[in-house]
């Protein structure tokens, strides 16, 4: 089980690095997906782990339901995010975050 958790933490860490360090918006979006999937693995694994000790007939943990919700939200988020990226590219001809600093006070 800990191997699964290591995989989950690794995915999340790689995703976080991608979001924080990369300059290309599309890669940032992909990294966000990695983070979400890292969390998804953790949720599934914990659900599995907690189900082991549950008495017969009692309610099982429903962590994996969250996973489905996260997938749906992630799909929507990517659709919106990519739409923003496309329209940004059309107006600014770039998706490089270094060039997108107009909010700088």
């Amino acid at each position, binding site marked *: 089980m800990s191997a699964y958790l290591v995989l989950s933490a690794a995915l999340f860490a790689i995703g*976080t690095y991608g979001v*924080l360090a990369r300059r290309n918006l599309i890669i940032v979006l992909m990294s966000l997906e990695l983070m979400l999937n890292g969390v998804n693995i953790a949720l599934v694994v914990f659900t599995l782990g907690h189900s082991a000790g549950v008495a017969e007939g009692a309610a099982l943990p429903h962590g994996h339901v969250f996973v489905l919700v996260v997938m749906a939200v992630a799909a929507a988020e990517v659709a919106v995010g990519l739409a923003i990226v496309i329209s940004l590219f059309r107006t600014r001809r770039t998706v490089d975050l270094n060039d997108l*600093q107009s*909010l*700088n*006070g």
Partner: protein
Amino acid sequence: MPPLDPILWLIPVLPLIGFLINGFGAGRIPGPAVAAIGLLGPLGAFVLSVMALLALAGGVEPAGVYFSWIQTADFSVGFGLHIDQLTAVMLLVITGVGSSIHLYSYGYMSDDPGIGRFFAYLNLFMCAMLLLVLGDNLLLMFVGWEGVGLCSYLLIGFWYEDLENADAGRKAFIVNRVGDLFFLLGMFTLFSLVGSIEFAALADALGHADLQSEVQNGPFAGYTLQRALQFAGICLFLGATGKSAQIPLYTWLPDAMAGPTPVSALIHAATMVTAGVYMIARLDFMFVHLPTVMAIIGLVAAMTATMAGLFALVQNDIKKILAYSTISQLGYMFAGVATTVFFAGVFHLVTHAFFKALLFLGAGAVIHSLEGEQDIRKMGGLRKDMKLVFVLFTIGSFALAGLPGLAGFFSKDEILASVLLLATYEGGMWGVTWWLLVFTAALTAFYTMRMLILTFFGPPADPHRHPHHVHWTMTTALVFLAILSAFAGGALLHIDLISLEHFTEPAWSHGIAHTLHETAHHDHFDAHWVALLYSVGAVGIGVVGAIGVYGFSRKQLADFVEGPGAQLHWLLENKFFVDEAYDYLFVQPVSKGAYKLWEKVDRKWIDGRMVEGPAKVTYWASGWLQKLQPGVVNAATSAVAAGSVVVLAYLFISGMGG
């Protein structure tokens, strides 16, 4: 004839309709149509006024309360109109003289692009003035009082492109406001004493009241009723001094001559300025109880009459002469009502309306035909150029001067006789009043003849001038007023059928003069004949003096003015520096104070600190806070990640502890 009560409201409403049509159509309705619409309202009101007069002669007092206007627990005022003998006289003067001046105005203003606006204002004035005399309570009277003040302001500043005219309008309005404040104080006092402001209720309550009884409650608790009424009387008289241009609030009237001449004739001579006299005559039931107040009014009025007469001696602007003469004659009217022979004051009001309107309109014809020239030194010899105007103007001048046989003579004699009666039996201030008024009679004759001689006699100031033709509407109005000026005085006094004295008799309360009259009769003292002798003597001296000085010895006059009389002339020409004193005492402090308030309070504190202050703080704070916004996405996300780590670490640690 059907009863008048249900249509009484039409009297003020007819001119109001004219105002609405001309006011909203100003600039779109052609001139002649404007004049026709403007004239119909006053004419209709005139017809209704005649009907009211006939109803009164038949013993019916038309009255009606048309709707409840203000209704609270202990205060209620209805929109009530009422015509008694006094109101009927005022109605006829206002609508009669008013109609003729409307007619004249068409000829006078036909070239002016603002003729629609002019007639609209004139009609609004008629409406307000009629409301003033028709109202059956003090508040409705005050509405008319304010309305005529507004129209006066609008019409003085009619040619508002000229700053001087606009200033004159403002001055009239502001000086009148001072008087209005005292009018209100007087009205409040009466309300607190009686609990009503309707004339009928007031007359009822004050007619039989015990004057020495103590007032029980309200602001006058502890004073006798007479004291409280004296306060009200003085306040109301001060209100009247504003509207009727008496000391101390007379300074606006000479400046008001900046308006078009028909306005000066209608508002600033014949009707509006007599509102104060009307008000005192209307409240006769109160003023008969206040002999001290009446003596003060008489003295102030006589002083005003003399002072204005002196100022008129040295004026060179024909309208200014007439303005000061109006102030002076208003002084006579106030002295007349102050004797409690109210009829005398109102009689002079009527005749003065005729001959002063005639004089102003005649002066207007002269000014109009000389393309705006108002300086009598630059006229001269006009009797050959404008024969008809000359004859009519002479009639008006003689009536004003009080030459025997003309209107002004009879009415002035009534006033002088009443004042003499009080001076003989009461003495005190009335003695001073009497001599001042006799002196003013001489002054009046002198300055009137001076004006007449300088304008129409002697050599023309400019031999090459070509006076314009005078429009027929103007001469029609002049002839009408000249007939009234010539004959109305004698007729209204001596023909029984139309005797003003008998007609208005039921309207008056009996005052001190009534009892004195009996005494005089008992003593075989005929004040009329004595007053007549004095008045004819004074007028004679004035006329002969003026002819002597301006007819034959102008050279000596010039020497006198430049030599020994220089200081006197300087003092009179500057009108005793009253305007300057008011300016220094009231206008400058207020205007400087207002400037300081604006500069220190408004600009520095309200604008600077309270309005701009928060804005400055916000701006300054945002200058600092915006440094937290680098606009770099990675920095923002890093901050979010770091924040989450901190929160997680805290939860982790505290979770460990728990």
